[in-house]
């Protein structure tokens, strides 16, 4: 019993030879993104994926989101781009839909209106939480502050027309990659 209690303190006194590497800050962005990539690949959440565009620049990622079940977007897959600022995670990454996206909170150039990517950003958010938030945004738009007013009107007013218009804009991810 005695030995168990003394264990941690004995340790702390032995440390320190290899400790001065603490706070290597210069590569904190890269390091954090690497660990996010690892977490993303290990957890393997269905319906979302993301990967750096090149291994020389970890600050530019590309990702995919599958439409959630039971929404207009079910069975469709969208491509997004993620650009991480050098002061990430203290500032939000810039997320855009690369695939044409017809949705109340997405404009025609793919810009997204989502509070957690703007003023509600928090340093603990990560790629996975962003992708999951975007996925749920597809099923639950914020129609109170639309970027696409027509979509916001049709969402409740005329679901059939919504689906039709949305599908006229949809492009398969294969086509986008070929462009």
């Amino acid at each position, binding site marked *: 019993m005695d030995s168990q209690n003394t264990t*941690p303190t004995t340790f702390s006194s032995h440390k320190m030879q290899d400790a001065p590497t603490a706070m290597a800050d210069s590569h904190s962005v890269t390091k954090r993104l690497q660990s996010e990539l*690892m977490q993303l690949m290990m957890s393997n959440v269905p319906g979302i994926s993301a990967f750096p565009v090149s291994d020389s620049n970890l600050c530019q990622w590309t990702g*995919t989101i599958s439409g959630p079940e039971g929404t207009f977007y079910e069975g469709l897959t969208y491509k997004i781009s993620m650009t991480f600022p050098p002061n990430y995670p203290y500032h939000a990454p810039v997320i855009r839909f690369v695939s044409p996206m017809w949705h109340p909170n997405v404009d025609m150039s793919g810009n997204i209106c989502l509070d957690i990517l703007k003023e509600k950003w928090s340093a*603990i958010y990560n790629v996975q939480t962003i992708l999951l938030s975007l996925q749920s945004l597809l099923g639950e738009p914020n129609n109170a502050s639309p970027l696409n007013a027509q979509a916001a009107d049709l969402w409740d007013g005329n679901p059939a027309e919504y689906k039709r218009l949305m599908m006229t804009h949809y492009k398969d991810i294969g086509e986008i990659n070929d462009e």
Partner: protein
Amino acid sequence: MDEISDPSDWTGTRLPSLLILDASLRCRICKDFFKSPFMTECAHTFCSLCIRKCIASTPTSETACCPICRAPVLEIRLRRNQVVEDLVEWFENARAAIMTAAKAEPVVISVPVTSADSERVSSSERRGRKRRRDSVDEKPSTSVTPESGDSAPRRAVRRGSRKVSYEVKLDIGDESEDEAAPFDLGKKPDAGSSASANGDSSFIIIDDDGNPDGLVPCPVCNVVMTPQEVQIHLDDCFKEQEAKETRTNQSASSKSNGPIRTLQSQPLSKMSKKPLQRLPKLQYDLFNDSKLRSKLVELGLPAYGTRVQLQQRHTEWVSLWNANADSNNPKTKRQLLRDLNDWESNLTKYAVQKISADDLSAWGKSHSNAFDDLIARAKKNVQKKLDPEQQQGASRTVEVNVQSQYERQDSAPEELKKVDGIDQKVNGRTEERMDYGCDVLTDTLITQPVSSDAIM
């Protein structure tokens, strides 16, 4: 990618529950182990530098809020979290050793048996552990055969006998060895090369090296003795070693005249003569350009650039400096200046680096081999981690999870087929079974809390 440690490293080892410990000792901002952990008033802990930079990145100090719960945070109200700091220190030191031990084959202490026998024994042993963890009712271990009536199978029987009453003679030495294992392993790194020089990933004493009675070496001095004796002996052994180190430390500190830290068991650090002072934040509105410049010069910082650059540089410096003052091993000012310089060049590098989409896709194509390689390696790691779990056959709880995963994901494979190149490779190359297995292990532990954040 190997140098990045991750809580998920524990999945698939014999100690998957350490994933939670590992995850809770990490800062939610930098995803690394806490460095000089500080606690907010809302009782959330972050690295000193992380939370300071976080507060500094908000437009005004009134808008600063806790990254986790959004409660208002004031920098002066941050308090050091000493317990967490000690925990991290201990865990980081022991992590590698625990990891090797957790990945190694189970400890088997036995008299000479044929290799076929020992294989059977170890697999039944592993299953025994797993069952105990999941508290699933099990039939008695099947591996008790008359010809292998030595200590190892006896252990297997003991585990099985929790549910079924078996007439088994329990052996105290066995028990204490079992209990002592984590502590012994934890102490291993401090033992320096002595224990690891054996090349053993854990204290496996197999009969062929001539210790038929299950003797184990002391991880510090490597003297062989019985497990009970190691417990008592280790205390003395460590005291001796500690006394030796204090002597050397004392002689070192008397040379440098360094102040002796009051924290019990904190080693003497290479602090400068006087304790580091915290830098105050500036109200930049009250400073015109030239005043701000002279302020930077006063601090020994570069004073070129636009006003925005000057402000950013000063803010970053205050965060770096104050976090460094919190550290147990503060860096020199020269090192800090280098960090500041790195940070600034990083900022400008990305500002200048505007890569067009064409360049990127061309680059991606020409380097697709590297990506394939990366993905293959990652998948291999996953496979490796999963192997032990799969071999022993999923226990009932896990099976239930698998079931629900399949149900939930019924439509998923279909969707995934449409996903672009990278994803196709990821899913196409590996068996579905493996992918779901991975989900089972990590989903419940990592994804759940994270995804609830998304909703918040």
